[in-house]
């Protein structure tokens, strides 16, 4: 039997090389996909490991109180075991007052390496009671001389600590220690933690000491992350058990996340590429068709010669197995070589290739076995059994597909189960293969019945559909996959753009940095609008507020930006968005101008009743609002006054606030705290015009609001809290509620309650919901929101408390084609001003560089290429097979006088018909698969994109691809038969030649 198989394989390699080639292609694709998965997973993991602040990569062991030398050694050893190369011990004392200064003492091993010196030098020597050298790394310079009792601190320089790891924050010389921290706190750093910690003078000061090290996670590969996480947890756990009182922070979570990303990527890529491989199934069956006549003939011979069933099966198994095994081996080798050479040097190409091969082993073995079984069945089974098997496969694929679709219906928000697309392709191919012959037969009968006759090409296809239908099914699957790939790509690109727009509505967004200064405060709107490439600036106000709709009170996000920006980012029609800015809400420049020459601001005041503290809200030219306390109005007429800071000169007085006198305010608060009701400060207040360096600022039209009412000349008040009433010019909010857009739920609540009230803390603003927005930029999905024009919101809030609602963010819009210029300028400017910045292009770049989504798109590109190959090869193989199996029939027709050109034309027309049927089916399949693209992208990116993805099918491109595949298939089919029947004489069968 072996001899027979060997001779057969050697005699006609053309018969089985097709199978070998396709299996080789599948195997190479699997190995390449596996390699791409390893690389994508590695990149994804490394993105997790290398990204984020340095403290997220640090291991820190901390304990309160002192530590012996043994503990020090053990802590250092534990950190070294987990891969730390440099361990720093640090001590941080709680702030303590030394004389006039609040000192916070700290010490750090090797301070010289961690501190960026500004002045002086780094501390030297041990920290001893008689001399302990320190540098100032935080807070202002001490106001007086440092204490000497028990510990003589000698400041030898100033500097900044480079890393936040040792102390949990990053003290900087001349800066407050932390946001909200005491501004006068001074941080002094020694270079000798043990010495400082052992100082008797500090024995009573609570302190924390830490051993820290920054792990070089960026050097790890994805496949090393899981091991590193396990080792970290094991070592720190062991250390924790040995040494009580320690707390440990480590990047174990980050490592595990990286490991999870690494492990998930190959599967996701294989899932993406599996669809392409499913196309090759059809090609494999076509190639197997080339083996079928020879094997069937040999099987019939063996049957007649008395071979047992096992021997006949062995012949088929050996012959098909050899072809498949050769293909699998060659494919694995080719895939490994391609992966090895495609990986950039230095990217651990060898290790990645080895892992790719190991990862591909199971899929290759499975695919190889499946291919072997498929080829053996296709080669050996009788037509009836084949039909039954096709039906069975169709039923199985259909059932699996249905159960998957029922179990997890694809939607924009759900990840697509990996097998759905390959199963859909397989099912569609099988359905087409089952339906097409019946359709062709029916057509053929119809024409015969009407007395006409189809061309022989159609008749043959109708009556002997197997190879042609298989080619059509392959082509349909290829076209369908190509369509899905295009839809996937378009959806991914659109999703990235939407997500970038969602995160950064304009070209860039500037946010306050560590200093908490806003971008507007740093440069003013005009300063930002002068940035290169800037088209416009948009102040953005964001706040978490409460909304009251009748009895319902819910938390929601208020996002205010210029109306045109809201219109652009929410997709509302301009007309609707324009309603956000009714003329009445155009913020008038109301108030009294503060002359440049005025050094003081004064106002005649008299309170008939309880005393009232009067303050002035003034806005500078730059837009900053300041509250100036003018004094207390008493029953006796008096002129209240305050110094007008230079920054406010030239600005405007926007409102006068009224509060109970401090004593009454405290008494009232005490009474309230005790459970009683504090009595309000009540009476009538008379305020004269503002006196501004010889000019009078009339308060005509002003009136009191809040816990007071009436014109400035006769304000009746009953005040319970600070700034409980305000006197100001008229504002639009007095007459109209604030127009907003809201999410559907909030809009529904407002509709039910016939109105909505926003509580911004300093102000309660009535709002009117003009329309519903499906989503809002930068607002998390599911979170309620209202969107409003920023000037309308600030105007409304200013009416309650001027300056309380200043936009903290700034959006920068770019001129067309100047996005990159603006991005660079904004990043530079934000860096200079210590602001946070996010650019849309930057976000887009990060999203696009998401490794798995990118590689999945790459896998689908490969699938597209495979589809093209499948289309060409399928058509070519079908044509060659038709030529081979029909060779004798063609010869017979030629003997009867049918010209070879006519016969070639018949074959070419048959190929064209097959290609047309296949591509038409493929376009239908693409239409069916396209809606799954959003779900497919969702599966690849392994997160929920915001906004949700919308499946997109670029029909123009799909039409072009379908046309290209059609032409390719027709061309391949024509080329396959172009050389046929061109010998000078017909090639007669050899056995016939030797017959008498």
């Amino acid at each position, binding site marked *: 039997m072996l*001899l027979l198989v060997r001779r057969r394989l050697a*005699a006609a390699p053309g018969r089985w090389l097709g199978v070998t080639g396709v299996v080789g292609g599948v195997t190479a694709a699997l190995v390449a996909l596996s390699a791409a998965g390893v690389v994508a997973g590695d990149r994804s993991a490394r993105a997790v490991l290398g990204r984020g602040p340095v403290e997220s990569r640090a291991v820190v062991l901390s304990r309160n109180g002192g530590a012996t030398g043994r503990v020090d050694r053990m802590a250092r050893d534990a950190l070294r075991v987990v891969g730390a190369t440099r361990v720093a011990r640090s001590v941080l004392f709680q702030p303590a007052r030394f004389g006039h200064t609040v000192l916070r003492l700290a010490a750090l091993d090797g301070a010289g390496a961690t501190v960026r010196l500004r002045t002086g030098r780094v501390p030297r020597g041990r920290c001893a009671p008689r001399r302990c050298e320190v540098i100032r790394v935080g807070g202002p310079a001490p106001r007086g001389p440092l204490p000497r009792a028990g510990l003589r601190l000698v400041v030898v320089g100033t500097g900044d600590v480079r890393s936040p790891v040792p102390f949990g924050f990053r003290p900087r010389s001349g800066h407050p220690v932390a946001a909200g921290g005491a501004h006068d706190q001074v941080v002094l750093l020694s270079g000798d933690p043990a010495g400082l910690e052992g100082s008797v003078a500090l024995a009573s000061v609570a302190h924390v000491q830490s051993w820290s090290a920054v792990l070089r996670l960026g050097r790890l590969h994805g496949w090393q992350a899981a091991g590193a996480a396990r080792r970290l947890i094991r070592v720190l756990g062991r250390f924790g058990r040995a040494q009580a009182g320690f707390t440990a922070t480590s990047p174990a979570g980050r490592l595990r996340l990286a490991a999870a990303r690494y492990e998930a990527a190959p599967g996701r890529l294989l899932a993406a590429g599996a669809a392409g491989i499913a196309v090759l199934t059809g090609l494999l069956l076509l190639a197997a068709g080339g083996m079928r006549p020879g094997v069937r003939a040999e099987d*019939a011979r*063996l049957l007649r010669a008395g071979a047992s069933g096992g021997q006949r099966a062995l012949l088929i198994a050996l012959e098909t197995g050899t072809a498949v095994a050769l293909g699998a081996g060659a494919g694995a080798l080719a895939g490994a070589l391609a992966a090895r050479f495609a990986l950039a040097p230095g990217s651990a190409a060898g290790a990645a290739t080895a892992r790719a091969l190991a990862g591909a082993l199971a899929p290759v073995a499975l695919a190889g076995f499946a291919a072997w079984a498929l080829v053996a069945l296709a080669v050996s089974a009788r037509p009836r059994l084949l039909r039954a098997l096709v039906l069975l496969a169709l039923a199985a694929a259909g059932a699996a597909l249905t159960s998957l679709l029922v179990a997890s219906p694809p939607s924009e928000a759900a990840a697509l189960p990996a097998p759905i697309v390959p199963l859909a392709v397989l099912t569609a191919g099988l359905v087409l293969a089952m339906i097409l012959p019946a359709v062709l037969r029916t057509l053929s009968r119809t024409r015969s019945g009407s007395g006409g006759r189809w061309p022989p090409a159609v008749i043959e296809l109708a*009556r002997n559909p197997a190879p042609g239908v298989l080619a059509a099914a392959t082509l349909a699957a290829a076209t369908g996959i190509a369509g899905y790939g295009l839809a996937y790509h378009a959806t991914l690109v659109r999703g990235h753009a939407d997500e970038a727009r969602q995160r950064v509505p304009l070209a860039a967004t500037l946010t306050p940095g560590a200093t908490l200064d806003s971008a507007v405060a740093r440069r003013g709107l005009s300063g930002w609008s002068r940035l290169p490439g800037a088209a416009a600036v948009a102040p953005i106000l964001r706040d978490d507020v409460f909304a009251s709709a009748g009895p319902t009170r819910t938390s929601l996000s208020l996002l205010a930006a210029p109306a045109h920006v809201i219109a652009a980012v929410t997709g509302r029609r301009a007309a609707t968005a324009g309603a956000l800015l009714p003329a009445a809400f155009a913020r008038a420049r109301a108030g009294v101008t503060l002359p440049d020459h005025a050094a003081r601001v004064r106002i005649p005041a008299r309170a008939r009743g309880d005393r009232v503290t009067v303050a002035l809200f003034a806005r500078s030219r730059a837009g900053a609002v300041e509250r100036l306390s003018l004094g207390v109005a008493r029953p006796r007429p008096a002129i209240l006054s305050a110094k007008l800071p230079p920054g406010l000169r030239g600005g405007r007085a926007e409102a006068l606030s009224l509060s109970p006198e401090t004593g009454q305010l405290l008494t009232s608060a005490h009474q309230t705290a005790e459970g009683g009701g504090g009595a309000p400060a009540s009476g009538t207040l008379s305020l004269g015009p503002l006196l501004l360096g010889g000019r009078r600022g009339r308060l005509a039209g002003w009136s009191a609001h809040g816990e007071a009412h009436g014109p400035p000349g006769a304000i009746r008040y009953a005040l319970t809290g600070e700034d409980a009433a305000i006197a100001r010019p008229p504002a639009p909010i007095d007459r109209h509620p604030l127009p907003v857009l809201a999410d559907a739920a909030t809009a529904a609540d407002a509709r039910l309650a016939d109105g909505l009230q926003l509580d911004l803390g300093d102000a309660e603003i009535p709002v009117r919901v003009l329309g519903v927005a499906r989503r809002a930029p930068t607002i998390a999905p599911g979170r309620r929101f209202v969107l409003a024009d920023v000037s309308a919101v600030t105007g409304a809030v200013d009416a309650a408390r001027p300056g309380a609602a200043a936009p903290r963010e700034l959006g920068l819009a770019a001129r067309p084609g100047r996005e990159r210029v603006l991005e660079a300028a904004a990043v530079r400017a934000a860096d200079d001003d210590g602001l946070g910045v996010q650019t849309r292009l930057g976000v887009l770049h990060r999203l696009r560089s998401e490794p798995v989504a990118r590689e999945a798109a790459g896998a689908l590109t490969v699938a597209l290429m495979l589809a093209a190959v499948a289309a060409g090869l399928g058509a070519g193989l079908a044509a060659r097979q038709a030529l081979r199996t029909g060779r004798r029939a063609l010869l*017979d027709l030629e003997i*009867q006088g049918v010209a070879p050109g006519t016969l070639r034309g018949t074959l070419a027309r048959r190929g064209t018909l097959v290609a047309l049927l296949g591509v038409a089916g493929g376009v239908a399949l693409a239409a069916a698969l396209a809606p799954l693209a959003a779900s497919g992208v969702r599966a690849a990116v392994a997160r929920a994109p915001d906004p949700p993805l919308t499946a997109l099918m670029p029909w123009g491109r799909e039409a072009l691809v379908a046309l290209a595949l059609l032409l390719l298939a027709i061309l391949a089919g024509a080329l396959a038969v172009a050389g046929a029947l061109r010998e000078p004489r017909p090639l007669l069968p050899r056995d016939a030649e*030797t017959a008498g």
Partner: protein
Amino acid sequence: MIECRELFKVHRTAEGDAAALQGLSLEAPAGEMLAVLGPSGSGKSTLLRILAGLERPSAGRAEVAGADIGRLRTGRAARHRRALIGLVGQSAHRALPPTLTLAEAVALPLGLRRVPRAEAHARAGELLERTGLLGVRDAHPDEISGGERQRAAVCAAVAHRPRVVLADEPTGELDAHASREVLALLASLAGDGACVLLVTHDPAGAEAADRVVRIRDGRIAQEGQEHDAMLVVGRGGWLQIPERLLAAAGIGRHARARSAGGGILLEAPVGATAPAPRARLAAQAPPRPTVGPVTAELRAVSKAYGSRRVLQDLSGSFPPGRLTALTGRSGSGKTTLLRLLAGLEAPDAGGILIDGEPLPTGRAALAMLRAAEIGVVPQELDLPPFLTARELVALPHQGRAVDPEAWLAAVGLGQRAGQRAARLSPGERQRVAIARALAGGRGLVLVDEPTSHLDEENARRIAELLAHVAYELGASVVCATHDPIVAAAAHRTWAL
């Protein structure tokens, strides 16, 4: 050794059920060579496939070497066949693995039965020596002649010393000499104690057999050689009277039977109209296409395949209105000559003229010439299997007025016009090919072994049709044959 009782076999097809066997009963003891004759489509091959366990009967019993093979499970039937039965097929070139040498091919069945290699090769050598093939033991099947291949196929079929040998028209494609060799080999097997059942329509096969039975319509109708054949009385008294006797007695659809002188007298009922004698096919007035007279002429034509010279300086002509029979043993060049005339091969030397013009060069021009002037019936028939008989006849004559139904009726296939070639028997396919070659009214008709798959009656019918086309319609018909019926109908004979 073989005992069939009331065998029925119904083939289910898309066009309807067809009964191949209708209560066939047969016995053949060990040591006997039994020839089964019958027209094409009478059920001969079906009987053989049932006896080989390759098909199951619809009803009845088929006992082979002690087992009812029709009722055995597939695996047991295969084991039974493997142990006791040798099968000789119709086409020798399909019986031997083309990649093995003759010695390997003959030894292969023994290898399949786990006979040690040395023993298998010794047995193969013995059989090849006995059949005169030892000299070509290392040749591949496509390097030897058809007769040699068929003998090698018989060697392979009997290498394991089967007790039953089933041979399906083993001499159908062979000349008389090669046929004799094969038949002698089969007879020697019977002599060795095997039961040989030979399905054939070759009179030489019948003569070589110990006993002859004839099948008609799926039943054994007659037994014995033609000159003293006895009718076989079937179950329930069914008799099948030969058509010529019925026609001679003027019996049509009804007959009256009565005892007469110790026998049975069968006669037409009184008053019944005698049917018209069954029309001879040639006289069924096939269409009379306009045939332009064509003369084919050979001028010192030579042709060789490698070192083997097949034709040497052959000259002569084939005038219109004549049926010329080309005769000669296998390898004498009959088929080669037809191919040269059809332009399917080029002569090594000499010239071929059609109506005084040399054959054109180029496949397209030659195809056009054939379409217009030359009808060809090749020996190896590979009709496009997806086309119906009607379409096959009409296809080469597109643009010309051809009546496929009439020509199919002329070859006795009027009822099968709508059947696809794949579902026709070899004999029926052969007749379709003949109808197709004659239908176009072409002046030169080249026919290669037109009766190799036909029974005697159909062979006679086809011979008469060819003669009719030549004599009555004026075509020049050249027919390579070793069938004496065709040779007898020919106007002249060329012996090669």
